[in-house]
């Protein structure tokens, strides 16, 4: 599994359907990841659309040295942080959108967090710091390697390792005996 790099190569060669494959494989995961930062599923979706449009606009910026998933997550994180930086104090959302937000998150969670173990951990993650949350997300939910997670988070491997160690320790406290089995 090349995490979309092969599909992107086909897209660069002119195969439009390859882009659909990339979207099907990575779009929801990217939205869920960005939501870890922005805590707004609609903004996360918007940022994910912008991140994917980067693949179309700057076709030759991706150098295939990391997986496409890692590359997209790196751009997604950067855009999410940028969004947080420039976000207005008061966010306006339509009532209809606001009503649907909870449903959207749950449907996305159902897609991403297929198994029960991940859902329990996901619920416990909210009490962790952002870095710990993101590190757990990338390693346990997205199955990225430590090196890939470090690249996405712009940290070194050791820092990611430390974050995970501390995150696990806190999760064990939060989850109790169940946590021992899950982690």
């Amino acid at each position, binding site marked *: 599994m090349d995490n979309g790099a092969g599909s992107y190569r086909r897209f660069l060669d002119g195969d439009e359907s390859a882009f659909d494959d990339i*979207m099907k494989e990575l779009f929801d995961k990217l939205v869920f990841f960005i939501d870890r930062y922005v805590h707004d599923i609609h903004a996360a*979706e918007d940022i994910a659309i912008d991140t994917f*449009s980067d693949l179309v606009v700057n076709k030759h910026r991706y150098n295939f040295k990391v997986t496409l998933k890692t590359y997209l997550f790196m751009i997604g994180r950067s855009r999410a942080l940028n969004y947080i930086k420039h976000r207005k104090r008061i966010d306006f959302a339509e009532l209809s959108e606001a009503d649907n937000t909870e449903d959207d998150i749950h449907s996305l969670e159902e897609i991403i967090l297929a198994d029960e173990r991940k859902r329990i951990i996901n619920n416990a993650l909210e009490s962790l710091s952002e870095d710990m949350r993101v590190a757990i997300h990338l390693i346990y939910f997205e199955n990225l390697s430590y090196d890939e997670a470090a690249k996405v988070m712009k940290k070194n491997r050791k820092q990611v390792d430390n974050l995970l160690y501390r995150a696990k320790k806190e999760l064990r406290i939060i989850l109790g005996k169940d946590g021992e089995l899950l982690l």
Partner: protein
Amino acid sequence: MRNFEERKAEIFLRSEKRIKLKKRKRRQLLAFCIPVCLLGIVSIALIPALPFVSDDAAYENNAPVSDDEVIADEDALTENAQDFVLLEIKELSGQSQQYYTITDTKQINDIFTKLDAIVSSYVSLDDISGEFSDSSAEDTQSNTLKNKGGYIITITSSDGSERTFSLTDNILSDSRHNIEIKLSAAQLTELKSALRGDSK
């Protein structure tokens, strides 16, 4: 949340807008850069053709004068000496005064050459070839000479400017440079001979 097709349409719509924006920015950048580059090229091509004095050239102009240049300046000074039209000698001895006037340019030049030879060994050439104007100095020198006795020599050039020397005992004073030169016996004799013998 959008469905798959809506997301895809949105991605390509935004991509298209961003590509257009990118192209427009590139065009704007080129529209700015091309005239600036052309202006730069034209400037580089034109500047060497302009009459231009570099700092180096200015420095060379201020460089110390060579021996050849000194000789050339001395020649110029001799040429200036030809412009003298009048030489007045006031001889003071105690309470009596005597005036002599010389209008013969050759004779004036002869006296000036003698004075100049003495003075130029003490002051720079630039100072010697300077303007001849210090009429107030004559009064001060007169007061001194009334007591001691001596000569006041005033040389007038064709443009009206004057230069005054005074001779007391064996001291020659140049009022313009405010210097006093002690003359040797030979110099004193030669100068007095030129002033007395030839002027009478």
